[in-house]
């Protein structure tokens, strides 16, 4: 009996608890191994040019995946992010064209600031609609955001009549340097990603609202009984998700120099996959920004590596799918073994 009690009370070893026991940790390990394999298969993988390319590409997905992780932490889902990326980018590009031609264009940077703010405001509006429908009317997140996916994508085509919108005007160069530039060779999207991920980490672990996000995913009724402003927190995560999607859309617009109506079409699945591979649990309460970053990096490394290794690109999706399932299977086997 005494034995049973003492084994109950024993602290887990450092490697068996906390970060080292998380899905994020072993997916990071898998990422390192895959990088080594890719480097062996295609030496050009580790060239500076290619690494910058990979870092830029995965940053867009990872930034949106941060927001997806927030939503998933509350046991919700946001399928509208791909469409929100496109709509925000299109509205920003159109606003930039109008503001550049208006008196605002006389002050350098003002036209761009107004356009970017306008774009982000529209993303915020979409997130607010999602959030209010889900938190106040208690619609299911899946259906609500599936509808919004269609609404926002439809708006993209209706506004542009299916054509692309070029980034033009006096601030076009400034816009490009702030979205697609680099600092000491490090691509800006990656820097934005790291800042946002760090900010989200601080928010989740060091503020009451961040803790409420976890509580909501762990036990919504308990959170409600404890006086947590459930509806406000829920609405907030959908707004954050849409804002991050909009921001990534604007970055992509700068990278491409023009926004096609089908920008980021189908990205929502890759974004959610990145969050899930990184350890976000769709039933809520588990996950974090490092998972979103690692998950997105893993997907991009595989895509990029397969291209470099001259593997038929049609196999990419299949492999990414296998990795999603493998990550979840490993997590399930692990949690069954430790009984936690």
């Amino acid at each position: 009996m005494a034995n049973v009690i003492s084994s109950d009370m024993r602290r887990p070893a450092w490697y068996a608890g906390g970060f080292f026991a998380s899905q994020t940790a072993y997916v990071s390990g898998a990422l390192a191994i895959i990088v080594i394999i890719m480097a062996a298969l295609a030496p050009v993988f580790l060239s500076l040019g290619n690494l910058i390319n990979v870092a830029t590409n995965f940053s867009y997905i990872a930034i949106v995946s941060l927001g997806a992780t927030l939503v998933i932490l509350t046991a919700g889902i946001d399928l509208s992010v791909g469409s929100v990326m496109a709509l925000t980018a299109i509205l920003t590009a159109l606003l930039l064209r109008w503001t550049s031609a208006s008196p605002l264009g006389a002050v350098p940077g003002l036209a761009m600031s107004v356009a970017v703010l306008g774009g982000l405001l529209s993303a915020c509006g979409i997130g607010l609609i999602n959030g209010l429908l889900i938190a106040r009317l208690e619609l299911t997140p899946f259906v609500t955001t599936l509808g919004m996916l269609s609404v926002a994508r439809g708006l993209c085509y209706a506004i542009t009549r299916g054509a692309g919108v070029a980034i033009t005007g006096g601030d076009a160069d400034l816009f490009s340097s702030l979205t697609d530039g680099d600092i000491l060779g490090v691509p800006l999207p990656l820097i934005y990603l790291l800042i946002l991920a760090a900010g989200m980490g601080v928010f989740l672990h060091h503020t009451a609202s961040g803790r409420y996000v976890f509580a909501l995913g762990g036990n919504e009724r308990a959170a409600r009984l404890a006086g947590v402003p459930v509806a406000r927190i829920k609405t907030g995560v959908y707004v954050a998700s849409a804002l991050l999607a909009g921001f990534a859309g604007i970055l992509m617009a700068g990278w491409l120099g023009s926004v096609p109506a089908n920008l980021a079409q189908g990205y929502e699945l890759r974004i959610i996959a990145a969050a899930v591979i990184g350890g976000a649990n769709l039933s809520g309460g588990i996950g974090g920004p490092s998972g979103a970053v690692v998950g997105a990096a893993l997907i991009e490394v595989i895509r990029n590596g397969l291209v470099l290794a001259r593997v038929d690109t049609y196999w990419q999706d299949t492999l990414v799918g296998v990795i999603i399932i493998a990550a979840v299977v490993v997590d399930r086997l692990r949690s069954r073994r430790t009984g936690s």
Partner: protein
Amino acid sequence: MTLLTLDAIGRSFGAIQALAGVDLSIAAGEVVGLMGDNGAGKSTLAKIIAGNFPPSSGTMMFDGQQVAFARPVDARAVGIEVVYQDLALADNLSAAANVFLGRELHRRIGPFLLLDHSAMQQRATALFRELKSETRAEDLVRQMSGGQRQAVAIARTRLADARLIIMDEPTAAISVRQVAEVLALIGRLREAGIAVILISHRMPDIFETCDRVVVMRRGRKVADKPIAASSPQEVTGLITGALETA
């Protein structure tokens, strides 16, 4: 000193009279067992005291003041806390995080208000020590035994300096060893001068822990007597209706 006084409390839901003419008074540091069959009105009574809904008739006095609660928060504000049957804890958070959920302690760093992890950890550890529970503040609730979870839920109420704690079936789903642990926790609440309403189906728990037993049947109070003056047989009879009153 009388802490809570109910005077002719009644509650109906549409045509159904769930509660009728219930008088009850509870003193500080008194542990009262509330018994009755399913549908006898125990939960309705507890929910009225906890502010989940107002009574249809009757008045409530708490600490010498007449009170009317519109929401649970109002009841909590005067010092009435509830430990729910399913404990209402977030499994994915630590014991300390659960104790402080909705009442986090902060420290200011520049313009930011951040969580004060160490203060919450220390306070939670002190609460568990006070309750003589082996619960560790930093452990996730998911990894805890039923007794430890119960301690977390009770520590939550201690944090608020509760004066009356309503416990809904705290021993319904835990092992025998943990039942003893929970009953000991209730004893410590009494020592601290906190009144407890213990709702339970388990006769041994009531007779081991409570000072008084109140029996409900069909929305009415059919007995209210000191534990020493009653017996499990009598209470069973009162619950089933074999005995009309006692």
